[in-house]
């Protein structure tokens, strides 16, 4: 049962509208604490990793849900468990490696030992020490190891991608994603074995929601990102669909690239470069893959913790880990498929130059998020204007809209009781 919040929030949403979002949701520490409790630690599934990262029995990966460190591990029977990285005894975050292989988990402090599903199986000196026929010390006779395991999370692994929840009452992952988003999820993750190409890690000095909003915002890519508008990878004259689950918390932005070049939508766009030609065009050597079934890009935001990227041949998960109201860590896991030819792997890696902390289109997302945070922190009582495409919330067959952000904030207000 949820305990009532000890202090009522001092914040009131300035109007009924979700087309205006007050700046204090990006910086207020009480708001942030409630977000962690209600989005990351209850009622939601959060991303922890990919099955391919823990291929063998005993393989583990350290991950995070909100600010809480967890360990995703493959047990000796093949089952995947997620446990909190926190010894039951004295709270030690016992796992200090990002990846590895273990028979069991041993806390370094007093060597409390847990099996890979999180059960406490060893407590040194539990029965005391015999000295001169007397037993000295030890745990009380009623000490019950089964009551002192690691926090065990609920786990859902679907087609190679692993989510976990601290909340045992969370609905099934399929119900959580809902019938609109699930087909897009399954389009990339259809059960094919994934191969890990590597990681990119960055810390972005902005509120975590700004990244969700960035990938629910089809307005900016054709303006901020020269490469997208000039080469026709993402711009307002493309065929596209903006879709949400019934709660409007998750979204999919699906679109099909065009030939780029000069057109009505590039008029007045200062980032458009009519004569931009690459010296070495292999970075944009796009080849359609049969599984795309149409769109050349589908960007999914699975609320609250992950972005799933397919942008032409580049694939990644982007994990959002909040670190206080003004900062989050953003970890990219680039992947391909087991059946990829060497050529396709090289193509995915070349196109990765567009993404990540140095990417031709992603580096500036981090930069503008930092600037948004800076500007909003100046005047917490200010508000955004999210009115492109009107003030209502509905799926659209075009990208000239901020409907997905409005949808997210309708859901946000409901859960946050704001």
């Amino acid at each position, binding site marked *: 049962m949820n305990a009532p919040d000890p202090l009522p929030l001092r914040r009131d949403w300035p109007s009924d509208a979700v087309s205006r979002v007050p700046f204090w949701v990006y910086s207020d520490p009480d708001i942030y604490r409630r977000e962690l409790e209600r989005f990351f630690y209850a009622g939601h599934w959060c991303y922890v990793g990919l099955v391919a990262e823990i291929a063998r029995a005993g393989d583990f990966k350290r991950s995070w849900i909100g600010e809480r460190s967890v360990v995703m591990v493959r047990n000796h029977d093949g089952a995947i468990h997620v446990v909190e990285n926190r010894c039951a005894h004295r709270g030690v975050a016992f796992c200090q490696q990002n990846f590895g292989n273990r028979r069991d988990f041993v806390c370094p402090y007093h060597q409390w030992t847990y099996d890979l599903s999180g059960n406490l199986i060893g407590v040194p000196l539990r029965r005391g020490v015999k000295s001169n026929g007397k037993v000295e010390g030890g745990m009380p006779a009623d000490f019950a190891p089964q009551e002192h395991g690691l926090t065990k999370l609920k786990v859902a692994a679907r087609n190679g991608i692993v989510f976990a929840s601290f909340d045992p009452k969370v609905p099934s992952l399929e119900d959580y994603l809902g019938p609109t988003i699930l087909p897009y999820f399954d389009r990339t993750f259809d059960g094919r074995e994934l191969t890990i190409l590597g990681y990119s*890690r960055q810390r972005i000095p902005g509120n975590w929601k700004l990244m969700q909003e960035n990938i629910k915002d089809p307005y900016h890519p054709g303006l901020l990102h020269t490469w997208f508008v000039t080469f026709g990878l993402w711009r307002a004259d493309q065929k596209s669909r903006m879709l949400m689950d019934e709660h409007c918390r998750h979204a999919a932005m699906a679109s099909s690239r065009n030939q780029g070049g000069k057109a009505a939508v590039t008029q007045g766009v200062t980032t458009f470069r009519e004569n931009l030609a690459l010296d070495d065009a292999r970075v944009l050597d796009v080849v359609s893959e049969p599984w795309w079934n149409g769109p050349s890009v589908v960007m999914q935001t699975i609320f609250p913790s992950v972005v799933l990227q397919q942008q032409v041949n580049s694939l990644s998960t982007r994990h959002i880990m909040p670190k206080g109201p003004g900062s989050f860590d953003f970890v990219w896991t680039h992947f391909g498929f087991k059946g990829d030819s060497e050529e396709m792997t090289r193509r995915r890696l070349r196109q990765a130059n567009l993404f990540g902390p140095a990417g*031709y289109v992603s580096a500036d997302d981090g930069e503008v998020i930092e600037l948004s945070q800076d500007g909003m922190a100046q005047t917490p009582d200010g508000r955004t204007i999210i009115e492109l495409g009107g003030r209502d919330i509905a799926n659209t067959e075009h990208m000239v809209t901020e409907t997905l952000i409005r949808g997210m904030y309708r859901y946000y207000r409901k859960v946050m009781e704001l």
Partner: protein
Amino acid sequence: MAASPAAALAPAGLELRFAILDIYAAYAACLDEQRYNEWPDFFVDDCIYRVQPRENFDRGLPLATLAFESKGMLRDRVYAITQTLFHAPYYQRHIISGIALQAQRADGYDVTASYLVLRTKQNEPTEVFNTGRYVDVLEWQDGELKFRSKLAIFDSELIANSLIYPI
């Protein structure tokens, strides 16, 4: 051809060693003075340039933060950082030390070095931005040393938001 140990280069290696020191000093100065248009000229045409997290390098994972495989790709990067990539401007200061000639190959030299890049954003104090080691291959081209390949393998587990300029 198998590489031979650096010790075998002496005594003829002295001038070579100075030439190597010179190219690292010139490389750092070029970047720190923001003469980005000159940066590709430190490389041969079919060069390799990668900025890669140490965890990927150590685990044999191919993903790099920047991965270029021609001078053309370097020129495209220069165009992006000077013309198209939006970013808050900053200074870089490269501190390169422990430049070590590791081995001589048939057509070049294996050289490693440690580097530290300090970043100074406008109106902000200086901060440690990125640190790691260079794993390079140098060769002579028309009497000048050039990088055939340059890997910047960085320890920094988190990039402080974005990495715009070359390392």
